[in-house]
């Protein structure tokens, strides 16, 4: 199966849909890395580099949207969601303007650049904003669909992409259909549900195979939309499997795991165990080594799944 980084798919999708749809793309001197450079090459008159000034870019986008343009603004997640958080909140979300905020290079799979550029907090930040839609696609095919949905959706949205390549799993699913706020069941199961997003989805499927070898049947939900959460699918899974493990390339604080735990604890309480970065900063290193160090692996997901099942039986 081919492996493509979601940031690459993002740049390609912008260039592809730019032919049919009227939108503009802003970047903050990272077009080569965020891959908006692919769009820039094809539509230079609709691309605006803002220089290394993310706060201004974010509020400029609000002004563009207020005047009827549809802007995508791109930077590393650390800067688009982190540095410019208050601009996203006050300039974009408070007036509910039609701006697509994009964070590439999210999570620790940034690798060698280290902690300053590995944003493990963006889902928490963006999820906290009223009216903000938060989407973290798992692969290239899903990214293309998410970008199209973003173009067609009217309102503020945060899109989270990775630097590191992932297998293009959803492209192999004949029934696959992307809809904002609708999770995708990637594999059925009855003993435990693994709810994953972004980079962790393919690892959740690996964990499902490891568990299957032990006779454990794990359901895997690809929760590409972290907000609004697909509560219906989630509650059904909790009812049918009795326990849940979440997996995200993000801090365990404030991201997908807490979103899932929040919904289930209020509506259908079952054990929810979280896999993610455990309240600490990242570091420089090769991505496979960092994934091991921070416990973002299929083995860790499988281990938490066994633990969740054990809690269920108490």
């Amino acid at each position, binding site marked *: 199966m081919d492996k493509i980084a979601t940031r690459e798919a993002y740049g390609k999708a912008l260039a592809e849909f730019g032919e049919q749809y009227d939108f503009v793309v802003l970047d903050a001197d990272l077009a080569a890395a965020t891959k908006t450079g692919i769009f820039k090459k094809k539509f230079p008159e609709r691309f605006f580099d803002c*220089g290394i000034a993310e706060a*201004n870019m974010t*509020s400029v986008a609000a*002004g*563009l949207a207020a005047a*009827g343009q549809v802007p995508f603004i791109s930077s590393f997640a650390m800067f688009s969601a982190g540095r410019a958080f208050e*601009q996203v909140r006050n*300039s974009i979300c408070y*007036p509910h303007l039609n701006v697509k905020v994009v964070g590439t290079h999210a999570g620790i799979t940034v690798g060698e650049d280290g902690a300053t550029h590995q944003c493990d907090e963006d889902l928490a930040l963006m999820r906290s904003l009223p009216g903000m839609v938060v989407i973290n696609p798992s692969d290239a095919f899903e990214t293309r669909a998410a970008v199209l949905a973003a173009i067609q959706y009217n309102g503020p949205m945060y899109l989270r992409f990775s630097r590191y390549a992932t297998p293009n799993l959803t492209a192999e699913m004949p029934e696959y259909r992307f809809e904002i706020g609708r999770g995708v069941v990637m594999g059925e199961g009855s003993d435990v549900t693994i709810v994953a997003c972004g980079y962790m989805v393919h690892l959740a499927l690996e964990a499902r195979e490891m568990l299957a070898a032990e006779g454990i049947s794990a359901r895997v939900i690809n929760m590409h939309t972290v907000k609004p959460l697909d509560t219906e699918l989630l509650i059904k899974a909790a009812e049918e499997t009795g326990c849940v493990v979440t997996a995200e390339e993000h801090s365990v604080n404030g991201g997908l795991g807490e979103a899932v735990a929040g919904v289930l604890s209020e509506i259908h309480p079952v054990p929810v165990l979280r896999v993610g970065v455990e309240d600490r900063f990242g570091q420089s290193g090769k991505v496979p080594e960092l994934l091991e160090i921070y416990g973002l692996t299929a083995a860790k997901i499988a281990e938490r799944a066994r633990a969740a099942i054990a809690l269920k039986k108490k």
Partner: protein
Amino acid sequence: MEQARKQELAEIARKIRVGIIEGVYHAGCGHPGGSLGIADLMACLYFEEMKIDPSQPKMEGRDRFVLSKGHTAPALYATLANRGFFPVEELNTLRHTGSRLQGHPDMKHIPGVDMSTGSLGQGISAACGMALAAKISGAAYRTYAVLGDGESEEGQVWEAAMFAAHYKLDNLCAVLDWNGLQIDGPITEVMNPTPHDEKFRAFGWHVISIDGNDFDAIEAAFREARTVKGKPTVIIARTVKGKGVSYMENAVEWHGAAPKEEQYKVALRDLGEEA
């Protein structure tokens, strides 16, 4: 400017100032000082300079206005009300629970407000976005923004200054309200952001320095700004904070405080109203 027109504008500015005092008094809080200072500028903008239609607040080709120093919302609201965007009586609901007249401008609910502002430094960037949108779509409207001198201590203001010059936003006219005071004291003592003229010029802007409480000077500056090509214009407008209310003039303590009943009566008398 003709004498008669100047008198009309002076009367409009007086009514705007009365609206500011009414609003802040009935709210029991708010920002009267800076609001009173820009009343003459606001009168010129909404009654002389800008192409707007109160019966169509969202008219596509309208000129845009962004109050980057959003805390002087009472001035914007009083201007919009007197221009006919909503009833003047509504000014008394400023900052009340359930009122659409939020403490800082809210574009979602208040007719005539083009951008939600309040967090300093962001409005001028949003104004850049509106001006850029006109360049993209070929629209003829102009975008105006009023920002504070204290606000210019925000780094984002200079990011925006760089951006506006880089994209040659000659359809953007910023007004820097230079009253010399911010919450903690004189701007030159708190964190000196001067000289504004040299700084904006160095950033590639056309700079006009005026007395911001002089209608002739304001009108001439807006006229000059319209002729400038290839670069944005900033009008550095010297204003008197608290202008028109005797005890509020140049008094930093009236940046963000409401008058008590006796003070309210004095303020209205100062503004030529029968209390």
